[in-house]
């Protein structure tokens, strides 16, 4: 009798676990087919090729792994949540360095996000990512120019991750709490873009 009860409990636990596992499994992600994953089919072949080459060059240069992705649907998730899950699913960057960046565009949900691996948060801090999105990506995306948005996004991210931004990166790291450092960072980040 007792054994039966335990068995029933075990069965219940199994059902509960399956029920919990189902919603997680229901979320689908595009496969990581390359450095540019155009699941939403909004990029031209030339852009895909050009960006792939540039991102390969970037990784060869400093081992940072940047991937551009467009998705058809966020499936009800916020873009922050979706981008973080996708980033982890794909395991972008080197595990030891956590040096991946995901530029995610969801044309149908009209959202965009730059998800930065922990190891690159110093090079590409929140404030810079936000500036890139607001100043460069959103205007292009609003105009429906996806090729332009992806391309300019890769430009900006590359600049942040390589020498062009080294001066303000250093200051960001040296004095992240002081007001002047931020002001300086942002002003220069703005200038770099122009």
């Amino acid at each position, binding site marked *: 009798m007792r054994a039966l009860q335990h068995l029933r409990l075990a069965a219940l636990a199994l059902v509960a676990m399956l029920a919990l596992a189902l919603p997680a499994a229901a979320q689908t992600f595009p496969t990581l087919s390359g450095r540019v994953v155009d699941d939403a089919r909004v990029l031209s072949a030339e852009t895909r090729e050009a960006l792939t080459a540039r991102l390969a060059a970037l990784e060869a240069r400093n081992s940072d792994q940047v991937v551009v992705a467009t998705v058809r649907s966020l499936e009800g998730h916020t873009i922050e949540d979706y981008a*973080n899950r996708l980033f982890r699913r794909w395991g972008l960057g080197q595990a030891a360095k956590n040096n991946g960046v995901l530029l995610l565009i969801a044309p149908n949900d009209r959202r965009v996000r730059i998800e930065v691996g922990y190891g690159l948060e110093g090079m590409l801090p929140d*404030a810079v990512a936000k*500036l890139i999105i607001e100043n460069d990506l959103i205007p292009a995306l609003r105009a429906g120019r996806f090729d332009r948005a992806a391309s300019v996004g890769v430009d900006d991210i590359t600049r942040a991750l390589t020498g062009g931004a080294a001066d303000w990166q250093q200051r960001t790291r040296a004095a992240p709490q002081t007001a002047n450092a931020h002001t300086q960072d*942002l002003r220069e980040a703005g200038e770099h873009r122009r």
Partner: protein
Amino acid sequence: MSLSFVAAAPRRRFPIIAPTLVVLLGLLVSGCGINRIPTYEEQAKAKWAEVENQYQRRSDLIPNLVETVKGYARQEREVLEAVTAARSRATSIQATPDLINNPDAFKKFQDAQLALTGALSRLLAVSERYPDLKSNQNFIALQAQLEGTENRIAVARRDYIEAVRIYNTELKTYPGIWWAKLLYANNKPMAEFTVAEDVRRTPQVKF
């Protein structure tokens, strides 16, 4: 050379068997889940440390934010004071590692952080009314950092919830139940977040 090897062989046979047995026994024991409870416990604790870490980071950003807003919107004293008060209440709860084993303390911590989230969201909403503040570079940077931190809090909470689910399940299912009774009688289920904090403070930017 070869002679001495042959002579040594029979003596060696037994000493080799003993460590092999130990290794085999070890594999057998670790394979049956004896280590799972402490392993999952440590994992959940590590995830909790990350939650605390991110809440701390948010707390550290607030004084600077309050000062910046004051410079442009001094008349919003009530909102500013609410944020400062909520912050000091949240930081007054010592986020010790054993917080997760104490449901009451955990709830207090959770409520205090939630109150701070609310106060901050009111402050940012009010800030929208001051164009000079909104275009202040320092404010823009702080706001971006705050948003980033809120996202990291959400991720850390999600990871913690998942780690606790695995740990608590292990305690309540077989063979974990047996091991818990036998060896880990002091291990209790860990506290879970009861309030969803997925409420976005700032509206997401659409393009």
